[in-house]
C-alpha cells in the first residue's frame, strides 16, 4: 500500500492506495497539493478501485442416481449446493479512518465524494489564516476572489471567465495566510453541476473533452486546461472581490459595496472562524479596508464583460 498526502491551509490528510489506477485518480484530483509526509494528518483515507470484478470460478458436481441420495423411491435427491453469486461488490470504495464511507459503481461519483470529503476535513482543521468559501482567478498578476454560498453562481462565472482567458485558481476554497494578502487557492478540477453545464454548453463544447474529464449524471469534473489551454497556477495578491449571483430572471446589478457591507458579506463566507483568534473578525475587516468589493447579479455573461475588464486593467496598472 502506498501513501500520498494532501496539504492545504494549515491542514493535511493522508490517502492510502494500492495501485496505479487509484494513484491516477488522486493525481487528477489533488496534484497541486500533494506533499511529502506531514506530521499529523487530520484524516486517513484508503481508496480502492477494482477495474472489473473477478469472475466466479465454482464447480459443478455430478450427482449419480444413487440410492444413497434421497433414500426411498420417489423421494427427490437433495438439491446440490447453490453456487456462490458472482461478486457484486461495488468496484469503487473509500474508507476514512478505517470506516467505509463510500461504495458505488460510478467513478465520477466517487471522485466527487472524495473531493468534497477531503475539502471538508481540510477546512474543518484549517488555521493560520482566513479560509473562504470562494472561487478565485487571476489576470495580469491581479487576484480576483468570488466568495459565495453553494448555488450562488461561482462555478458558472468562473468557467466563463476561464474561457475568456483568465487563469483558474479554484472554484471552492481560498486561503489567505496571516500577514499576507496573497491568494492561496485549493486548485482542483472544475466541479460543474447540471445547471452550470446547461449554461456552459451554449458556448463551449463539453463533449469534446469527455476523455479528459470525469462525468456522471450529477457532475462533470473538468481540468481547467480544457477551457483555457494556457491556464497558469499562481498565488497572486488579492486585489478585487466580487460577490456573484446568477439569476436568469433578475435585473443586472453591479454595485460597489461599502467597506462595512463587504466585511459583513465576507464574514458569511469564512469557513474556519472557530479556529482563529477573535473568529477572524479583525483580519476580515482589515481586508475590506483595503480591497474593493462589488455585488454582481447577472443574467448573461455579456453583462459581466461590460464592467470587469476596465476594473481589472485599472488594478493591474
Amino acid at each position, binding site marked *: 500500500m502506498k501513501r500520498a498526502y494532501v496539504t492545504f491551509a494549515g491542514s493535511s490528510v493522508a490517502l492510502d492506495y494500492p495501485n496505479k489506477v487509484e494513484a491516477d485518480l488522486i493525481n487528477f484530483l489533488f496534484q497541486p497539493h500533494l506533499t511529502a509526509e506531514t506530521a499529523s494528518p487530520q484524516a486517513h483515507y484508503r481508496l480502492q478501485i477494482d477495474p472489473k470484478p473477478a469472475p466466479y470460478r465454482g464447480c459443478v458436481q455430478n450427482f449419480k442416481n444413487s440410492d444413497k441420495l434421497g433414500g426411498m423411491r420417489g423421494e427427490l435427491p437433495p438439491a446440490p449446493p447453490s453456487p456462490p453469486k458472482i461478486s457484486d461488490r461495488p468496484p469503487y470504495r473509500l474508507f476514512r479512518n478505517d470506516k467505509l464511507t463510500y461504495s458505488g459503481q460510478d467513478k465520477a461519483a466517487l471522485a466527487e465524494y472524495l473531493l468534497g470529503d477531503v475539502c471538508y476535513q481540510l477546512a474543518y482543521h484549517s488555521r493560520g489564516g482566513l479560509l473562504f468559501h470562494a472561487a478565485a482567478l487571476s489576470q495580469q498578476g491581479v487576484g480576483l476572489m468570488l466568495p459565495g454560498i453553494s448555488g450562488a453562481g461561482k462555478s458558472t462565472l468562473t468557467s466563463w471567465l476561464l474561457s475568456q482567458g483568465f487563469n483558474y485558481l479554484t472554484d471552492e476554497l481560498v486561503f489567505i495566510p496571516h500577514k499576507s494578502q496573497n491568494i492561496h487557492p485549493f486548485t482542483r478540477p472544475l466541479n460543474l453541476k447540471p445547471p452550470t453545464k446547461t449554461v456552459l454548453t451554449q458556448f463551449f463544447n463539453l463533449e469534446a473533452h469527455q476523455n479528459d474529464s470525469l462525468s456522471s449524471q450529477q457532475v462533470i469534473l473538468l481540468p481547467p486546461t480544457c477551457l483555457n489551454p494556457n491556464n497558469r497556477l499562481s498565488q497572486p495578491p488579492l486585489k478585487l472581490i466580487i460577490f456573484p449571483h446568477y439569476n436568469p430572471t433578475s435585473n443586472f446589478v453591479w454595485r460597489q459595496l*461599502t*467597506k*462595512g*457591507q463587504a*466585511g*459583513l458579506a465576507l*464574514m458569511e463566507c469564512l469557513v474556519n472562524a472557530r479556529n482563529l483568534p*477573535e*473568529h477572524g*473578525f*479583525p483580519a476580515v*475587516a482589515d481586508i*475590506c*479596508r483595503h480591497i474593493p468589493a462589488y455585488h454582481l447579479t447577472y443574467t448573461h455573461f455579456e453583462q459581466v464583460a461590460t464592467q470587469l475588464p476596465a476594473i481589472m486593467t485599472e488594478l493591474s496598472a
Partner: protein
Amino acid sequence: MNLSHKPQRKKDFRLEQIDDELLLYHPGQTNILYCNQTASLVWQLCDGQQTGEAIIKLLSEAYSEHNDTLKSDVEAVLQQFLDNNAIEFRPA
C-alpha cells in the same frame, strides 16, 4: 422598549470601525451586526448616560434635515440592538 430608559451597550461585543460604519460581533453568538453611519452614532451614544428620547433629540438637532424619518430610524436601530442582545435598557 422604553425610550425613557437609558440604553447601555453590553460588554464583550467586538467592534470594528470601518470609515463611518461599524461591524459588531459577539464571540458567543454567530450573527454579526452591520451598522451604517446612523446606527454607528446610536451605538456610540448607548453609554448608559442618556435616555432613548435624549438620543433621538440629540441626533435630531444634529441632522435637522432628516427630522421626518430620524425618530423612526433611531427607534428601529435601538430595537435591532435589543433584539440581538447588544444593549439593555436601564431605568433612568
